[in-house]
């Protein structure tokens, strides 16, 4: 029973973390119609920045805040230099151009920080466990991730739904030209949205860093998951991304934890041992394939013009 609760919390934590990445992707896609493969690179950059700044300042929180700001700046710089020129192009051009950026970022990180990953040690007050229920301990850091990501999601909700900037963002998503015609500085808005997405990716990266050291290529695996989420949720929909992220987080975590046991009930022990790891990693892709076949536009399709 405690195992189930623990795995559910892990699923929640992973799902929320994925949401941070998927939210940025889906914002950028919904508003700028841009497929950004380099989103995972910003996640990686966030993790490396956090590890470096935390070592410099000697404080985890201070390092994290600095890393967040730095990722925001990197994101906005990338937008101004490269992404801006890709809007309105073919999706294939996006794939190729941002693939080039991945190569650039991976190699730049290798040059600056070396090929070996660097770890981000946790401060003692996070590196403990908390008693949530009588007789049930849970990692304080994972709990902190849940709190921070929920706060970020709430912030995003307020920003997009209840502020003037958010109104412009939503307006930009439904009709770009019209917003521009009404005298809104679209270029600046796009740069801000891209920076916001980058900062969210950086936040996800820096929170993941203490659990799985910051390393080259860390962004690429999780990027695919984030893409799966945006597609399941309906591209451009933040609400859809939230639901799909939690769904994928749970399916992936619980699948890995309990699928092998379930298989063992049905198959022989050897067959289960070979098939289970493969099947539990492909579970979410299977899920996405099913969703796309049944609802090609995703669970929460966004109505475009």
């Amino acid at each position, binding site marked *: 029973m405690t195992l189930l609760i623990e795995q559910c919390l892990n699923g929640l934590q992973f799902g929320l973390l994925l949401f941070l990445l998927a939210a940025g992707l889906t914002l950028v896609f919904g508003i700028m119609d841009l497929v950004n493969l380099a989103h995972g690179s910003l996640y990686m950059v966030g993790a490396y920045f956090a590890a470096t700044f935390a070592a410099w300042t000697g404080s985890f929180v201070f390092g994290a805040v600095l890393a967040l700001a730095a990722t925001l700046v990197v994101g906005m710089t990338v937008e101004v230099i490269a992404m801006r020129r890709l809007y309105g192009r073919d999706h294939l051009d996006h794939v190729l151009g941002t693939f080039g950026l991945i190569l650039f970022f991976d190699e730049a990180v*290798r040059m600056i920080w070396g090929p070996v990953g660097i770890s981000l040690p946790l401060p003692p007050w996070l590196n403990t466990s908390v008693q949530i229920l009588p007789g049930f301990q849970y990692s304080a850091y994972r709990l902190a991730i849940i709190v921070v990501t929920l706060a970020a999601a709430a912030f995003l909700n307020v920003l997009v739904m209840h502020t003037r900037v958010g109104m412009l963002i939503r307006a930009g998503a439904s009709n770009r030209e019209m917003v521009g015609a009404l005298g809104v500085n679209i270029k600046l808005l796009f740069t801000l949205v891209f920076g916001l997405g980058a900062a969210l990716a950086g936040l996800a990266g820096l929170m993941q860093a203490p659990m799985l050291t910051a390393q080259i290529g860390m962004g690429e695996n999780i990027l695919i998951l984030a*893409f*799966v989420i945006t597609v399941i949720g309906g591209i451009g929909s933040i609400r859809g991304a939230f639901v799909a992220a939690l769904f994928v987080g749970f399916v992936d975590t619980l699948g890995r934890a309990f699928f092998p046991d379930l298989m063992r009930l049905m198959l022989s022990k050897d067959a289960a041992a070979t098939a289970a*790891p493969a099947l539990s990693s492909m579970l979410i892709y299977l899920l996405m394939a099913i969703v*796309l076949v049944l609802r090609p536009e995703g669970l929460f399709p966004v109505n475009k013009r």
Partner: protein
Amino acid sequence: MSATFNVRNVVVRGLLIALLLLPVYVGLSGDRFVLTLFTRIIILALAATSLNLIIGNGGMMSFGHAAYLGIGGYAVGILAREGIFNGFVQWPVALGASALFALIVGALSLRTRGVHFIMITLAFAQMAYYVIAGIARYGGDDGLTIYRRSQFVAPLDLSSKTQFYYLCLALLYASIYLIWRLVNSRFGMVIQGARSNDLRMRAIGYPTYRYKLVCFVIAGTLCGLAGVLLANYTEFVSPSIMYWTRSGDLIIMVVLGGMGSVLGPLIGAVALLVLEELLSNITEYWQIILGPLLLLVVLFARGGVDGLLVKSSAKVRS
């Protein structure tokens, strides 16, 4: 393919002939490395050529094309592991498996369009990747060594480097010819019509879904063939052969060379892999140059290398 004399035709024909004569140069200079490098280039050019059939002509942006490389390669690897080295068994099995996988993926994916199509093909390829990586009997993550190349009847011996090179080259040229015939046939016209306006093609009575599916399967099968060659070339297969970055590499070759032109992917493959080789000789961190270079190609050289060649040909003529 008109016979007019211009820069593009000279370069393209020069390339085709140079590839034919390469083993002669190797025989004279003794530079074995060039032969190995170009065998690899030719195999990947075959994969890129097959991808171009669906991306360039069909407008189907598959981001999971490396899956067929993996399936073709693993068919050879798995059969070899089970003691079957006969090429007459290995190759048809590999092609059949690739075609079957393409049929399933295509049948489901072609219901979607645009970004969804990119993502669903990617998802299927990743599924295949994880399945292969999870099977411990065939090496799992570590891959599978192939102890003997595919066996054929007497004169054909794949372990001879020169013979293997010519086999790959012959298969590449045959595939390019096949695709050229296909693209210019009635079938190819329907596919290209569906790319520019699917609705209209259906309105005049073409079941475009079936046409596109057949096109998708042909491309998958040809890429499976490239996978067979690649496995024989490296004498080793690992799941990384079908990782999504490999699909990205194939897309780069197609776009770099020039989409939709039949010879474009060959030019793209040669350009990319030779560039990689040259850059990696200059600096250890060659990707930091290659990455922005790709971005520049996307931004400023639409139509890729072939497009540039055509443009410069037009200038010479005027």
